[in-house]
């Protein structure tokens, strides 16, 4: 059943190689697009970590993605030319002017009731820090409540689902603070040490690609550690793990928070590449779609879930541009979901495992006969 370490290592190396040489064959438009798909691949890793390894099906992963996205987007919004050109001491987002009381002072401190909270985001470093800190903190606090109370299975899914919808509505309702339904658009570029990341450049692609590879490798190493093994034992039988003396909630909280952090990171990178943040990131549909990517790729395989996300998005892009399918592609995706769940419960990753097992099993048999 378990793949040999060499095969796994080869698979990871092949994937890394593909991702790194891809820009040689892509124009600017496709480069930007591929970078988005790699971000989704990172979400696949996050889902696989919490669902496949920890057994926690988070139907609200979009919450952490959205947190990451909004935190960095606030910084980038303040860096946009329109925000800078308001003639005040601090840059002011354009939508705050539209929502301001007549005669309000044009400054972040007090243009609308809660606009002073934007002030620290003038520093992009703060935006990046919050993009990681907020999802991890929220996941930690949520985990403290949920897992310490031994809430499990589908009830965790319902809580996360309700939570992401709750936050989405609050973001929409807080129009003067978040620009409501429209989200944050017209963003500036991410600038690190004087270098500007143009979303359509190779630099941005490599920023995303290398982050993804690092995250993938780190997650892989993490699940190989003792803590990762204990986690899988908890997934398979929480009660037994508890009787063996493991602090079950502690492991669950830790991995839940790590998964949230990865999603937050993905959210930030998405904002860098796509140049907007919107409440649609916290739609139910998006959160469930992520889960389906991971299911198609194979939830119990980090690499499988990552590739699943990338491949489905490429199919979607291909199908939505094919003449015959131009209006039916969404239905095609729906059909793929149903068929995969029915006939490939372990996803493409599981299929690959079986294939390699069969091949290596056959060679072993042949060697045995000699």
């Amino acid at each position, binding site marked *: 059943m378990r793949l040999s370490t060499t095969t796994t290592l080869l698979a990871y190396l092949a994937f890394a190689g593909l991702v790194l040489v891809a820009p040689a064959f892509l124009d600017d438009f496709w480069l930007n697009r591929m970078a988005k798909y790699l971000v989704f691949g990172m979400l696949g890793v996050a889902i696989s970590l919490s669902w496949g390894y920890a057994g926690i*099906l988070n139907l609200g992963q979009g919450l952490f993605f959205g947190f990451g996205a909004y935190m960095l987007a606030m910084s980038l919004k303040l860096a946009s030319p329109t925000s800078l050109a308001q003639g005040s001491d601090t840059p002011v987002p354009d939508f705050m002017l539209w929502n301001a009381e007549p005669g309000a002072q044009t400054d972040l401190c007090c243009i609308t009731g809660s606009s002073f909270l934007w002030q620290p985001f003038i520093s992009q470093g703060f935006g990046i820090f919050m993009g990681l800190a907020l999802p991890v903190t929220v996941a930690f606090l949520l985990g403290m*409540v*949920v897992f310490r*109370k031994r*809430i499990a*299975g*589908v*009830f965790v*899914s*319902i*809580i996360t*689902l*309700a*939570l992401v*919808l*709750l936050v989405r*509505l*609050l973001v*929409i*309702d807080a129009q003067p603070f978040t620009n409501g339904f429209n989200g944050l658009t017209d963003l500036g570029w991410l600038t690190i040490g004087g270098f500007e990341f143009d979303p359509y450049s190779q630099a941005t692609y490599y920023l995303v690609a290398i982050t993804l590879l690092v995250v993938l490798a780190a997650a892989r190493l993490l699940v190989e550690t003792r803590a990762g093994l204990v986690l899988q034992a908890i997934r398979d039988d929480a009660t037994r793990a508890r009787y063996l003396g493991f602090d079950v909630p502690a492991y669950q909280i830790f991995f839940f928070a790590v998964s949230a952090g990865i999603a937050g990171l993905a959210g930030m990178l998405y904002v860098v590449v796509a140049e907007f943040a919107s409440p649609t990131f916290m739609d*139910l*549909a998006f959160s*469930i779609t992520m*889960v*389906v990517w991971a*299911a198609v790729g194979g939830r119990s395989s980090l690499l499988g879930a990552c590739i699943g996300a990338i491949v489905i998005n490429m199919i979607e892009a291909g199908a939505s541009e094919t003449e*015959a*399918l*131009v*209006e*039916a592609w*969404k*239905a095609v*995706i*729906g*059909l*793929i*979901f*149903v068929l995969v*769940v*029915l006939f490939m*419960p372990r996803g493409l990753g599981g299929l690959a495992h079986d294939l390699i097992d069969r091949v290596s099993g056959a060679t072993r048999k042949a060697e045995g006969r000699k």
Partner: protein
Amino acid sequence: MLDILFIGLSLGSILLLVALGLAITYGAMGVINMAHGELVMIGAYTAVLSGIWLDLGLFAALPLGFLSAAAIGWAIERVVVRRLYGRLLDTLLATWGIAILLQQAVRLEFGLSFFGIHIQGLGPGLQNVAVPEILQTTITIAGSSINAYRVFIVAVTLVLTLLTWAIMYRTRIGMQVRAIIRNPRMAAASGIDVARVNALTFAFGSGLAGVAGVMMSGFKTVFPDMGSSMVVDGFLVVVAGGVGSLLGSVLSAGMLGEINAVAAAVTNDILARAIVFGVVILIIIVKPAGLFSFKGR
């Protein structure tokens, strides 16, 4: 104040009809049907289409909505769900795929690009259904005016809930359903045709959703995505009320409907929904088994 409470009651009624189907299928079969909202949408479109094609009013659309949603629910159970019993989360994902399929089918972009079919009333546009004149009046009770259509909604829900209760507790098939809820294997061993009962239960739950859709078509616009938020609300009602408890679903639907209506009157519609989500999260955290779960065992 009375009028606000009555709006809450009618909201709760629609919620209850949606939740009853979810409660039965989740409680009895361990299936989370994410396509349940699309069955509401199918009910609503039945009202639209029966108006355009057959010149039928809302009253006649009620049984038609039940039948069409039940038929599609039955097909979903036969083709997909029956292969997934015992795999709770897989049912969630597969039915999500079905939900996308149904939405696209109704949009008929499917048909437009493949077969050149155009069906009057379907498609991405918005549709409205006229409410019969008898129901357009208002009734005045204790100084508050109450919309007759909302009274109608509450009445239909009351009848259907009583009917569901009677079927579950007063008929042979209801007894079989309850046996399956308690222990499917034991039920099968006692000679109950579990596959048949499951299919019928699923169809019945779907039919209730269809009726909810017909009634919604009277006060909301009908469009292909209308079901998505319904299934979430319905599911929250089921979980907050306590899985496997019909009474729990009834009470929590009423409670969440009232919270929604009162909060919407005090603040706005968006915040009201947010408050409902918040309340449900708190309920699950404080009482994971739901407010009215049956005790023992």
